[in-house]
């Protein structure tokens, strides 16, 4: 008898896309698609239990072991640095983390840079590696406003197509890192549900890379 795998999925488009993939691989849970306010869904036959959680919380659910595996953006992993295994790059949800600012301007060289961001750790690490001193302004949304209103010199944020930046007359100054969705696992679960997790990993790998 196989053990049930607890899976944390990020609410939203990415999570739905991941679920479709998992369903195709034999990890379906029909109840999940019913439009309810429930957050936990179980399918005994397929041995899965799904949780819908806030995207930035997926790593925490997996790190504490409440979820055995999960799917999370690399941006969250870089920002939170959770103690988990990063087993696969799913290759979707692709975007990049970048430094952006007002069009036509350049990164100020002669002063401390004011950086508005949702990702203070990533921003700090990036500028420290370039020996630049920064002041971080932590925001939770509408980051693009900060340079427009003169609150910050630049922003560090996720750039997908760049259209939000363009519409606000901003442009990318430099790329920091490429982002995509990752399949992660709790370190203890990996040991006690080795067979189930390795099977799941190899099924996803085969589906994504061997077609």
């Amino acid at each position, binding site marked *: 008898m196989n053990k049930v795998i607890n899976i944390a999925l990020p609410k939203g488009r990415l999570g739905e896309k991941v679920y479709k993939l998992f369903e195709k691989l034999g990890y379906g849970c029909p109840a999940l698609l019913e439009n309810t306010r429930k957050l936990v869904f179980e399918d005994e036959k397929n041995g899965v239990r799904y949780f819908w959680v806030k995207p930035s919380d997926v790593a*925490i659910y997996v790190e504490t072991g409440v979820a055995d595996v999960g799917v999370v953006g690399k941006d969250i992993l870089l920002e939170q640095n959770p*103690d988990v295994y990063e087993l696969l790059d799913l290759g979707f949800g692709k975007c990049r983390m970048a430094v952006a600012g007002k069009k036509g301007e350049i990164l100020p060289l002669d002063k401390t840079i004011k950086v508005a961001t949702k990702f203070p750790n990533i921003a700090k690490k990036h500028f420290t590696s370039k020996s630049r001193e920064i002041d971080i302004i932590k925001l939770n949304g509408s980051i693009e406003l900060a340079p427009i209103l003169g609150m910050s010199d630049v922003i560090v944020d996720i750039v997908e197509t760049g259209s939000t930046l363009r519409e606000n007359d901003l442009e990318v100054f430099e790329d920091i890192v490429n982002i995509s969705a990752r399949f992660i696992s709790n370190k*203890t679960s990996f040991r006690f549900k080795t067979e189930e997790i390795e099977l799941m990993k190899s099924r996803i790998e085969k589906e994504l890379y061997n077609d």
Partner: protein
Amino acid sequence: MPENTLLSFEEKISMKLMSLFSGYGYKKFKMSKFEEYDLYIENKSFLKSDNIIAFNDPTGKLLALKPDVTLSIAKNTAENESEPRKLFYSENVYRVSGNMHEFKEINQIGLEFIGDVDTYSLCEVLNLAKLSLAQISDSYVLDISHMGLLIGLLESTGLPYDAKEEISGYIGTKNSHEIRRVCGEYGVDTVLCEKITTLASLYGSIDKIIPEAEKLIVNDTTEKAVNELKTVCTALKYSGNADNINIDFSVVSDISYYNGITFRGFIENVPGSILSGGRYDNLLKKLGKNSGAVGFAVYMDLLSYLDRDNDRYDADVLLVYDKNASAEEVFNKVNELKSEGNRVFASSVPCKNIKYKTKIILGEE
């Protein structure tokens, strides 16, 4: 009976571990709460975090609350130990832990073998690590690795130090795709790159992994590592101690301190490793000592994930007496209940804040 109800889960485990260690001749080592701050600054990378609580002693010397025990034991080792020292400790260490980045006092119980580490001594320590886990829960796994394989494979890539560090981080998170990316960026030979990613993902029983590990041999360092791993695993199997032992090369520790065998212990439902240890000859060498060492520590704070003992009672009997009852009368009843082996909480008001099995109202039975 009294110990069972009075000792917490953590205290019970700690007693069991200490009696286990002393059964193999390990002696308890009690150390001072403080250590000179310099010790930690000189060996900063040995510690998992560089946050240390430092303060001045009355003479102005800078001291620190210990963030780690192994360094103190290593420091107190003679330059040339002629005989092996077997020690265990139960100490509080002060570290920043968790997401809140706050200092916490963590109880650590551990064991150190210092001296000439031969195959038996190594196996004894591994066996004690395994038995320690078994004391905590039936559902446990001890994962063994050998740093030599990673060190040897990285050596043969000829990568710069930074890239090596990056790769060994990715080994620790079983992150094959990032290893491929870094190797690709530096133009590492694909066969070698695949060997490194294999190293990250290999996981399983001794019998399953040893033959796979043999395929990863590329130079002297890796060959020596695989051979040592094989010797130790054969000895562990011989003594009938190989169940619940797996090989996992993602068990990575800092290469400037650890060499040879490293290991981690896991308990089902406890996130992260509860036991961690390895061979740290390099640390002793750095401190100018001429001896080998191997040891491990158990992080007792993680036991809270297992302690589901909610049905612990504060008292067996809640004895409620009338305010006007005579003291003698209450005394008699309390003594009577006590002599029957009950723990008694006597009160003139029916307390709601204590957990009890039965309630007796004096004069009403």
